[in-house]
């Protein structure tokens, strides 16, 4: 094998670079890379964070349960009621593993704190009772959604929505969106890294760069859309996701839902007797 005559390099390529460095106030690329990495870590989790073997709920029921719980919390102004609902929730939380529970508490406390900060100034407007009630209710709602998120996978969410007769076009869009979020997120992350490698000076027009980044992402995703969809079709996809048949027990489902149904009944009829 003969190598050809080495081609001559232009002079600028033969001399080493003069290193320059200009101050930069903040690095939005690095910041966003971190965000994306968190998102991807969360998305790549194939199993739900918590999976109880004995007590597996069908996805539609857990979605329903979440809805009922939030609605009840939002509707009532009775602290006693909230107390009961809180106990119910705490019971669920007991099923979490210690590490999960710590994770749960951290994000829950943070989000509740933020919600409280927003309402706090109203203390001077309407007094402490409102702030307390609001804080209590918001905390409970955030806890129940957080619990749902910890125990549910995307696939379960999809099949849950499907069982609840959500229009197919929504489900499809949701399914593709979740799939793509991972792919596009990964792509965006890699592109940002590549960009980072060539950001040898502070960006003069950061916005132009971002426009390029997302314009490029759109076009690429357009092309990906066609290819991936074709690849999915090529593998038998016809607009319906076939899911792994879930092994759930109807009795368990009903049993788990019962306390909630009782609560709803008490809530509705209790009104006439002044319970709440």
């Amino acid at each position, binding site marked *: 094998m003969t190598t050809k005559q080495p081609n001559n390099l232009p002079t600028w390529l033969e001399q080493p670079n003069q290193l320059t460095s200009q101050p930069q106030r903040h690095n939005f690329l690095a910041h966003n890379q971190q965000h994306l990495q968190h998102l991807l870590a969360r998305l*790549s*989790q*194939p199993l739900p964070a918590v999976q109880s073997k004995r007590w597996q709920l069908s996805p539609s029921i857990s979605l329903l349960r979440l809805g009922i719980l939030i609605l009840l919390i939002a509707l009532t102004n009775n602290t006693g009621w909230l107390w009961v609902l809180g106990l119910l929730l705490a019971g669920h939380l007991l099923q979490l593993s210690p590490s999960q529970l710590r994770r749960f508490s951290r994000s829950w406390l943070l989000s509740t704190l933020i919600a409280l900060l927003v309402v706090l100034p109203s203390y001077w407007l309407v007094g402490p009772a409102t702030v307390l009630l609001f804080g209590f209710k918001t905390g409970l709602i955030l806890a129940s959604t957080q619990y749902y998120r910890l125990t549910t996978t*995307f696939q379960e969410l999809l099949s849950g929505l499907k069982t609840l007769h959500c229009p197919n076009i929504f489900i499809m869009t949701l399914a593709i969106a979740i*799939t*793509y979020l*991972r*792919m596009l997120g*990964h*792509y965006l992350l890699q592109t940002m890294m590549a960009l980072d490698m060539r950001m040898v000076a502070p960006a003069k027009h950061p916005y132009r760069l971002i426009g390029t980044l997302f314009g490029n992402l759109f076009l690429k995703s357009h092309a*990906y859309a*066609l*290819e*991936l969809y*074709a*690849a*999915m*079709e*090529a*593998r*038998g*996809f*016809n*607009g319906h996701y*076939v*899911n*792994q*048949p879930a092994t759930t027990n109807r009795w368990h489902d009903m049993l788990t839902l019962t306390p909630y149904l009782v609560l709803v009944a008490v809530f509705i009829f209790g009104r006439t007797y002044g319970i709440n």
Partner: protein
Amino acid sequence: MALIKLTNISYDYPNTCGLDHLNLEINTGDFICLMGPNGSGKSTLLRILSGLETASQGDYQFDDQAITAAYLADPQDRQRLHQQIGLVFQNTDVQLFNTSVADEVAFGPRQLGLPEAEIAQRVTDCLELTHSSELRDRVPYQLSGGEKKRVALASVLALNPTVLLLDEPLNGLTIAAQQQMLTLLQTLQAAGKTIIMASHNFKQVQAVEPRFVIFNADHQIQADLTAAELATQPEQQAELLTL
């Protein structure tokens, strides 16, 4: 009767030419290797064959059925075509979209509605065939380049298509893995599958004695040689070695 018959196929991208008046016949059980300079149209041809694009001009017959834009517009016909033709993309990234390798491979069979036991069997088999059993529980997009290639092939194999289109499947694999893959493809061919792959690795591919279809830089087919023909033409062979 030829399985695939291309007559005068041209494909134009918005501002470049992709393919220029191609004629090609492929029979069931053929093992074809597409070669040619970069940008000569190998990928474009594979995309047309798989029904992802329709030719701007010319006629594509698959199994005596004309594959036209109208044919492909019908979801059922399209699906029927896709069940017979599997494509491994040049950029495997676009092909892997599930959350675990096992799910990835199971996706196709599951869509077909096979029983779970059979799906599990197929997954295990395909991963074994592509030497990627140990990747089973990994997340596909986090694999290394070569690992992705193998998983992509496994996921297409799981559908058991009769025609396998492979766009540079050897890329990014170690020489040993390339040989494994070629051996696997050869076995598939022996089982009656038709295999059409694009590759630049003449050296490696030569071992399985495919029929070489060689493109030139003008997006045309320059030569079409069976292994036997090639053996009698040392100057062609030398040319291919440095293509």
